[in-house]
């Protein structure tokens, strides 16, 4: 449903980290065999689940907060154009500059040009999902600009030449021995006798990063929230690297998805309660930084806000799918997902993994580019219960499955399902099919269980038995009672 102008856009191919290289079942199969990964992720998600449950359970009004969060985000999406314009006016009036990026390529070009204009060849970065989504670091490298991640986990991932596997704790697939090995190999100036003791690993990273903070002219960040009413941008973080990057450099560039708006400053009261409790399982995170444009004599002299579309207006246009834009990237859904817990983030092939990733990634790229992701779920519903803004992920997955089917056209599966539906449309045909299935009683006589069936049912019998069809169906028994 795009116009001849190419709007609304989808996230383009060949750039960024939204297009999976392998279908989910294939990538998942590999990940399941990685026992280190499963142990790390299982332990981490279990720990964060418990922490989250405790801080959520102590609030008597958690459900009201969720409903408020949902309502505020629904309002934002309903008025997105006017709020974005208001944001631009407020940021500009406060001395900042707003840039509009249709897609990843435009955003990368804008940021590269801004950095080049300063003459800097190095930038420091605060962890930002949006910049990973668009592949900013790679694009800057092509312009001879090195982007140094300063979030400890992102630093580990970057030095390890790796990809993040979790929205909040990107290096969760690594253990301390691996991190030590990565630092020894790739961190300039690291002490050669570095042990794998976590406080000393962190100290090594601090020393390394301190040099970067004090020398960097340009910082690039994302944003958790931007307030349309005041033009204020907010970053919520745990380590303090954000505070360093937001205050020390001369030029600050923020890349932000257009959905990250809130209408008024007062709305932060709801979200600053929802986000820390849902993400790290804390009552409040250690550092929350808010800035409005530029301030004479304090902090960056130049502030640029790059508003990123990259498929978001396409999501907005889908009535059944638009609430995926409410996501505040807390990762609570990842931590409760039984599928994510066993395969980790890499299996989803996108910077957004887990339940929200299974929805948002295909929505941003178009379902045709990621048709297996909506099926990476048992629809257990744990994500919906954990989501601080009540995104109905299971319903959206079912909706996207229908889109994936439509995108695929005629397939063997469609024919098989059509045959099943035809059979079940008629009680006579259904009863006949039941009678036919009794032939299956020829199998499985040894243990009264069927243990081997041909493809595609072999997927089941590879690991599980099936019951033998009964001698009489329920309706046959009823008829004869």
């Amino acid at each position, binding site marked *: 449903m795009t116009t001849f102008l190419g709007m609304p856009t989808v996230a383009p191919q060949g750039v960024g980290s939204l297009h999976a290289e392998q279908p989910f079942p294939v990538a998942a199969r590999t990940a399941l065999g990685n026992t280190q990964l499963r142990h790390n992720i299982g332990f981490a998600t279990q720990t964060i689940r418990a922490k989250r449950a405790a801080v959520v359970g102590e609030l008597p009004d958690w459900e009201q907060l969720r409903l408020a969060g949902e309502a505020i985000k629904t309002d934002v999406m309903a008025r997105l154009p006017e709020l974005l314009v208001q944001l631009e006016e407020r940021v500009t009036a406060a001395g900042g500059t707003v840039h509009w990026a249709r897609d990843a390529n435009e955003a990368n070009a804008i940021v590269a040009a801004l950095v080049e204009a300063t003459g800097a060849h190095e930038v420091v970065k605060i962890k930002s999902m949006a910049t990973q989504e668009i592949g900013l670091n790679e694009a800057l490298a092509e312009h001879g600009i090195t982007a140094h991640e300063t979030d400890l986990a992102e630093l580990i991932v970057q030095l390890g030449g790796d990809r993040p596997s979790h929205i909040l704790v990107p290096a969760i697939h690594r253990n301390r021995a691996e991190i030590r090995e990565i630092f020894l190999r790739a961190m300039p100036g690291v002490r050669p006798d570095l042990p794998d003791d976590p406080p000393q690993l962190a100290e090594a990273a601090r020393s390394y990063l301190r040099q970067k903070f004090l020398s960097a002219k340009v910082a690039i960040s994302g944003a958790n929230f931007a307030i349309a009413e005041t033009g204020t941008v907010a970053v919520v973080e745990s380590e303090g690297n954000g505070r360093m990057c937001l205050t020390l450099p001369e030029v600050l560039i923020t890349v932000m998805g257009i959905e990250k708006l809130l209408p008024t400053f007062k709305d932060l009261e709801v979200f600053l309660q929802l986000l820390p409790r849902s993400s790290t399982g804390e009552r409040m995170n250690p550092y929350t930084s808010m800035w409005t444009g530029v301030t004479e004599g304090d902090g960056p002299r130049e502030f640029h806000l790059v508003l990123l579309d990259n498929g978001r207006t396409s999501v907005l246009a889908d009535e059944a799918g638009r609430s995926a834009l409410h996501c505040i990237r807390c990762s609570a859904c990842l931590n409760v997902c039984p599928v994510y817990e066993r395969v980790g983030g890499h299996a989803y092939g996108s910077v957004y993994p887990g339940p929200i990733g299974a929805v948002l990634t295909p929505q941003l790229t178009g379902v045709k580019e990621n048709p297996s992701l909506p099926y990476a779920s048992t629809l257990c519903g744990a994500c919906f219960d954990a989501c601080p803004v009540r995104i109905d992920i299971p319903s959206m997955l079912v909706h996207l499955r*229908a889109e994936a089917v439509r995108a695929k056209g005629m397939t063997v599966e469609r024919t098989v399902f059509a045959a099943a539906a035809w059979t079940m449309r*008629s009680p006579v045909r*259904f009863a006949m099919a039941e009678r036919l299935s009794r032939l299956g009683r020829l199998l499985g006589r040894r243990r009264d269980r069927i243990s081997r069936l041909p493809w595609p049912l072999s997927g089941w019998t590879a690991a599980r038995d099936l019951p033998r069809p009964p001698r009489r169906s*329920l309706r046959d028994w009823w008829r004869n009672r």
Partner: protein
Amino acid sequence: MRVALFATCLVDALFPDVGRSMVALLERLGHEVVLPREQTCCGQMHINTGYPDQALPLIRRHVQTFEPYDVVVAPSASCVGSARHQHENVARALGDAGLADRAHALAARTYELSEFLVDVLGVTDVGASYPHRVTMHPTCHSLRMLRVGDRPLRLLRAVRGIDLVELPRADSCCGFGGTFALKNSDVSTAMLSDKLRDVLSTGAEVVTAGDASCLMHIDGGLTRLRTGARSVHLAEILASTDAP
């Protein structure tokens, strides 16, 4: 009360004993049970795999079959969930507002077994006797879609002779997920593996649940690995009058 039994296609075709138990139980409680012969399938499998258009005639058949009855009861939280939450939305999205309204009306008198016993009939002691060590898996649809809470446990606790043990990590999904079990069979098996570990850790001889689909998956693992434990549907336990 006259109760229409929404058997579900899976019970009708593969687990008729569950249906027979529903009939025996409800009749023992003094009610008349009818098995409308025009029923086939609620269409959940088609809806959840991305074929809502193919499910529409199944929804129509379901509504036609059951709307003459005052009360409809099924031994499946997932099928009741589909009838209550999906039928109306799919019909409306595909442009059949009349069917959507009829589905909505029928949903209000469609119940999963434990809901029906506890909320409508007001009973938790159904006169059952089942002298075995049993652990219960709550199933995701009953937990999170229908929110039956502890109704099944309250019913089981009243069963004479039962040795009921709590299942660790009970609210973790078993990994069935409908066609997920085939499309993502490796992950499904990994999830089953953990569910089996939890079931076996209780020392229970029997694992029970209110959904034959999840039980088929769990039982498939229990027998494949010759574990010595088996699955029995909630309806079968509640209908049972096994001597101690």
